[in-house]
């Protein structure tokens, strides 16, 4: 079953930034980039570190613990020490509300 879940308002996230979104027993990262809003799993795939304090550089999120990098739009792992992709989630914006589709 797939659900669209209301995550936050568009102005909750600064430009070139992200916020943490917790829903049920999972945690996500919601991004505001020049290319639009995106969502991925919240935790880095290298070690147990949430990405919420990471650095958004264009379409890249850099993990705050060891600076591993992922492509935000696809979740693709870009550089060591990360080598496993992040799960990414579809996002839709309705009015000023951001929804993510959780499988």
């Amino acid at each position, binding site marked *: 079953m797939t659900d669209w879940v209301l995550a936050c308002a568009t102005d909750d996230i*600064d430009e070139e930034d992200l916020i943490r979104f917790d829903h049920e027993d999972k945690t996500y990262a919601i991004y505001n980039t020049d290319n639009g809003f995106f969502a991925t799993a919240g935790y880095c795939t290298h*070690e147990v570190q949430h990405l919420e304090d990471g650095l958004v*550089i264009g379409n890249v999120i850099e993990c*705050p613990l060891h*600076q591993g990098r992922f492509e935000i739009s696809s979740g693709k792992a870009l550089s060591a*020490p990360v080598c496993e992709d992040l799960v990414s989630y579809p996002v839709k914006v309705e009015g000023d509300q951001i929804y993510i589709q959780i499988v």
Partner: protein
Amino acid sequence: MTDYQATNAASSGISVPKKNLKALMRRSDKPGLIWLAQWAAFLLITGYGVYLSIGTVWHWPAMFLYGIFLTVPSYALSHECAHGSAFRTRGLNEALLWISSLLYYEEPNHRRFAHARHHTYTWIEGKDAQMPFATPMNFKGWLLEITGWALYVYETRLFIRNALGKFDAEVLDYTPASELGKLKWGARICLAVYASLFGMALAGIMWPLWFVIIPRLLGAPVMLLFTLIQHVEMQENDVNICKSTRSFTSNWLGRFLYMNMNFHIEHHLYPMVPFHQLENLNAEIKDQIPQPDPGFIRTNLEVLQVVWRRSMGGSTRAASIRQAPHMINTPDLQEMS
């Protein structure tokens, strides 16, 4: 992982408003390129001294001076590039990670994974992949560390084992399985480079000896005096970076050579802040962290006094630098400031 707690700002009770932190984290190529140009200038000037002194009594002092400018920045740049924060352009980071790690004497992929684990578990025994010496340190341990002997033995063994694909359990623990091939081939490339340099020297081509090998060996103690004081005499097995790590004051030359890593508590709290913003990070959090220790030379002299007296059975209380309480063997233990 039930016992997992990364050692960082959160585990140390330090915070910076997100907006301010974002400004500090911002990446740029310019400061790194300026630093690189300055490094090149220092190497050219001191290297020219080596060239002019060949065949004179000044040759070895000249190689020592040039060796300091070769070795300390190699370590510092390798460290900053392992974090990916020296430059905004990733390719520049990666190319310089290779060159500087070769000079430092560590395979670049291993450098990155081992150092990542050092940040995850800073100074946690058995988990930190970069605790190079037994603590509390005695004079013998100090000598092994500062001469570079401990580093050369450890890294040479690792180069050979990794090149053969025989990975130590701890390497397997901190390196994702998919990356082991890179470690293996990286080690092989490094060994080939080192073998070529030695081969040239053996064949009578002297520039690798005069400009790389001997200066690198002579400069090592200065580099290791910098790295030693990052954590020596500090608290093990504590997730609070302010207790496990030392910052120290430094003049402009020390800060240049070491790429501002004298702000070491600051770096461990927020490793994504690049070297050129560490002073500003210090300004942001200085009310939340301990005072830095008093300078590179004074801090090292006090460490040397402490390790010597520890070996001689004397008091191990330092005059002024910060020490973990259990490092001090006198009865009136002081709490760390």
